[in-house]
């Protein structure tokens, strides 16, 4: 039986949309960018190499916590042994990539992006979606989106670690402090963008003050909430640029580690 805009009783119009603008452009572009990122990060996670070039470490592999890590890359120890599955060593990237992956997958903004571009639910506003049934986020697996806050907390821990990585990048390859290279800037920029992304998160906004019913009783939390609300307005922007930032930081470290370029030191 016909449903949606073709349901009985609604104006009988045989088109799924009458929009005349290029409504497909945005979902198509989002699809392309997200898919490229997924392909690149999968390739990098499996590569298991070129992620450490004293003192720079790629955000895809930090913290490097398995004994399969390259020498010197593990700043926080190696509590996890080398796991071998079907004769293949599990990449150390896998143990930590679940955090940013889970964080972004459950992010309210990315949800909108991939529901629209990958799942076409809906592809654009007032363009009928192709699905027969729809239950939204009411049952498994999508009900798990409600766990976004756990990834948010874990993401904060990861941000601290990546900030630490940026700080130790103020050393040279011999471990002496007080130096700065292009790599230092790249890692600092990456950490900054990740903080902006996390601080502008809807869960952050809720936690810091949004859940309160009375702001007047909590003046400091109200201030914090107002600040985070401002950042929150730009959350989509931070989501994108921090994604590019991570990819760029990884590409840079990879090129340095491979010897394609040398990490230029300002001083």
């Amino acid at each position: 039986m016909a449903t949606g805009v073709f349901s009985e009783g609604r104006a009988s119009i045989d088109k799924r949309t009458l929009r005349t603008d290029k409504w497909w452009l945005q979902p198509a572009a989002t699809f392309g960018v997200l898919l490229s990122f997924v392909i690149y990060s999968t390739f990098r996670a499996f590569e298991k190499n070129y992620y450490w070039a004293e003192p720079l470490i790629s955000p895809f592999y930090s913290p490097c916590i398995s004994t399969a890590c390259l020498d010197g890359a593990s700043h926080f120890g190696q509590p996890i042994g080398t796991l071998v599955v079907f004769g293949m060593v599990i990449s150390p990237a896998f143990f930590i990539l679940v955090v940013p992956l889970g964080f972004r997958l459950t992010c309210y903004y990315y949800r909108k992006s991939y529901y629209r571009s990958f799942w076409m639910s809906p592809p654009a506003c007032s363009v009928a979606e192709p699905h027969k049934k729809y239950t939204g986020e009411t049952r498994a697996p999508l009900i798990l989106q409600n766990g976004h806050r756990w990834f948010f907390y874990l993401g904060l821990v990861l941000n601290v670690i990546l900030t630490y990585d940026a700080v130790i990048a103020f050393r040279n390859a011999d471990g002496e402090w007080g130096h700065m290279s292009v790599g230092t800037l790249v890692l600092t920029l990456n950490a900054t963008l990740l903080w902006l992304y996390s601080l502008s998160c809807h869960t952050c906004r809720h936690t810091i003050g949004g859940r309160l019913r009375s702001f007047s009783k909590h003046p400091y939390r109200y201030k914090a909430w107002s600040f985070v609300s401002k950042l929150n307005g730009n959350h989509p922007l931070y989501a994108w640029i921090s994604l590019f930032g991570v990819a760029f930081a990884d590409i840079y470290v990879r090129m340095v580690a491979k010897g394609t370029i040398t990490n230029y030191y300002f001083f």
Partner: protein
Amino acid sequence: MAGKVNLRIWRGDSKSGDFKDVQVDANEGEVVLDVIHRVQATQMSDLAVRWNCKAGKCGSCSMEINGKPRLACMTRMNTFEEGETITVTPLRAFPVIRDLVADVSFNYKKAMEVPSFEPPADLAPGEYRMQQVDVERSQEFRKCIECFLCQNTCHVIRDHEENKKSFAGPRFFIRMAELDMHPLDTIRNRKQQAQEEHGLGMCNITKCCTEVCPEHIKITDNAIIPMKERVVDVKYDPVRWLGSKIRKREGI
């Protein structure tokens, strides 16, 4: 945009209908509703169209213009290309009554299902005292003119008629958020109601409601997502749930 314009108007009723092409004069500074009125006055005297204020404040003239849910009185003619055919249809998420008039009673039914404001028992009307910062968030939602464009564009019901029984829609999520954030409302299980009875979980935050709202209410960011987070507090976050049992925290 002065001169002749081409209009494709959907005409019919709940049984059948079709597009009718007309050419009509348009003057400088006019909006789509003006032009539709001219069609009515000069060529189709029985054309049904609902309107009231012509100022974007009554929410009556909601329709779809070139496939986009809009207020006809706030859509200026000069936003269209010279010679472009402008297609106007009734709202496509609701049953049609006739021509451009849709039956939006679904929304009135849903409105009645949301329990109204419940002030503290010991306060009489006129004795309510609140701080501005505490009512500010709710006030954004009071701008709603009930045009139901958000309801109409929401794919949960637009694309799935069967969801209508279990889904209240964005206009009522802002209502629930308004009351849940209200400093004097005493009903404390609005979050649970929103999730369990009004289908908040069906919304996948794809933001079309926000895109079409003529009052620019940030429906998704300021009402739906905060409500989803509040629902997580009471339903899906074991730590907070436990904390609220032990400490009986105020504010959640």
